């Protein structure tokens, strides 16, 4: 594992979506998936555990136990300032977008199965991470 890669934690209750996200991310040499969580609770457990601490979380919103908003709130109170959070949701409701950003998400992406949109998303995530790194 090269240290020049962005370490990513995938948080999604759908194994299919985690599978797609892994593929999409690893098309780029800049990302490496260091962990997967099946819900919000597992995500918080991971972040507090001994696993590789990620640079980025791809966070789903609707999940059992603790959902994406719970995780966002927890990250805020836990002051995990180094962590970049990108919400990956099936929902495109304006209220979900607004709430996510209000709770500290750095980006909001709509889940997409088209290559074009996926490439665009990766490009934007890379840009976001490099911008935040230089801060």
């Amino acid at each position: 594992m090269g240290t020049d890669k962005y370490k990513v934690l995938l948080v999604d209750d759908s194994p299919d979506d985690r599978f797609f996200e892994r593929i999409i991310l690893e098309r780029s040499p800049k990302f490496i998936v260091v962990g997967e969580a099946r819900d919000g609770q597992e995500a918080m457990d991971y972040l507090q555990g001994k696993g590789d601490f990620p640079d980025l979380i791809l966070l789903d919103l609707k999940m059992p136990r603790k959902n994406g908003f719970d995780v966002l709130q927890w990250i805020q109170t836990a002051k995990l300032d180094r962590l970049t959070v990108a919400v990956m949701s099936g929902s495109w409701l304006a209220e979900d977008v607004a709430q996510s950003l209000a709770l500290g998400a750095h980006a909001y992406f709509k889940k997409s199965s088209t290559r074009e949109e996926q490439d665009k998303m990766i490009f934007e995530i890379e840009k976001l991470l490099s911008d935040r790194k230089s801060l």
Partner: protein
Amino acid sequence: MAASLTKRKMERQPSSDTGKSHAHAGPPKANILIVDDRMDKRLAMETVIEDLHQNIVMASSGREALRHLLNQEFAVILLDVNMPVMDGFETAVLIRERKSLENVPIIFVSAISDTETHVSRGYSLGAVDYILAPIVPEILRAKVAVFVELYKATEQVRRQAEDLLLAHNELEGRVKLRTAELALTNNALRVEVEEREHAEESLRQLNLKLEERVSERTAELRSANQELEAFSYSIAHDLRAPFRQIHGYTELLQEEFSEVLPDEAKKYLKRIESKSKEMGRMVDDLLNLFGVVRQQFDFANVDLNDLVKDVVASSREASPERSIEWKIGNLPTVNCNYGLIRQVFDNLVSNAVKYTRPRNPAHIEIGCNRAEQEDVIFVRDDGVGFDMESGERLFGVFQRLHRPEEFEGTGVGLALASRIIRKHGGRIWAEGRVDQGATFYFTLRKK
């Protein structure tokens, strides 16, 4: 009433018997009573007054005279003073005792020798005149004639008064009868009015109940409809993930295994990919459609000129290869939700662009017919148009009038536009002819 009338007629009967009833032809005759014990004197007087052509009754004594007087009315009595048994004065006293006879004129006939005493006594007994014997015929006739005339005049007045009374009574009777009839009618009317009021009241109650039930039922239907839409929304929402994932896998299959897959398999895979993408689009459109109803939105005054300029600009950008001549009229400012009305114009304009694809150049006009109550905004094109008979289907969900090979689309755009316009309290409709273009109209509340 009728009974009392008859009674009155019967009361008048005695005077009718005298032959003076005005029902007889010719002037009624008056009765003249000559009272004298001597036949020759009676005849002499009768001869004198015969010329008057009245009815003459003779009496040879006071008693007989009284009998006549009880049976008939007389215009005048010629009463001889000097009679045996009961003389004229005694007779006069008896006559005057009778209430009904107290005003009958009496002319005393007396010999000249008794003049002094007779005249004063006669007058004190209510005589109206005096004739002295020997009788001068002209004087007797003239005097009797005066009383006959007087009697006749009095009779006439009395009869007229009677007739008047009769007429009055009859009138009164008729008024009473009519009043009674009116009272009856009135009563019937009141009953009818009451019945009608009662009926009206029950109708009003029934109407109220009906209205209540209609509004209850409407509320039920509305909530059932909302429930159904919420259900559809959640189904559509839940379908998105699997459709997206199916599409994702077909993309991966094509990307990673195209070298090992036989051509036939690759063809099928391409189909699956395209179908799953279409399903995803339909679900997205459905969510959009139901989302419009669920969501609460803000109204603001929007200048449609700016909005349409934007829409046309992005449409040009999206299809730079097309040659379209745009004609954009002056549009009003309306109170609406910007995002939603923008969606309506996006849909109508992209439809116009899509269905004019066979035209080169195509013509698209956006304008507004201004009217007193409402402004009618329209988007007109000279594209492939549609058959008006299927016009109703245009605004239905997933309704398509063209094969997907000809024109792409899910058939939700116009349904969505229709929902948005309705949500704004407006109307939307379309006119078109096959191959002659289409015009879509809608109304919006004025600013």
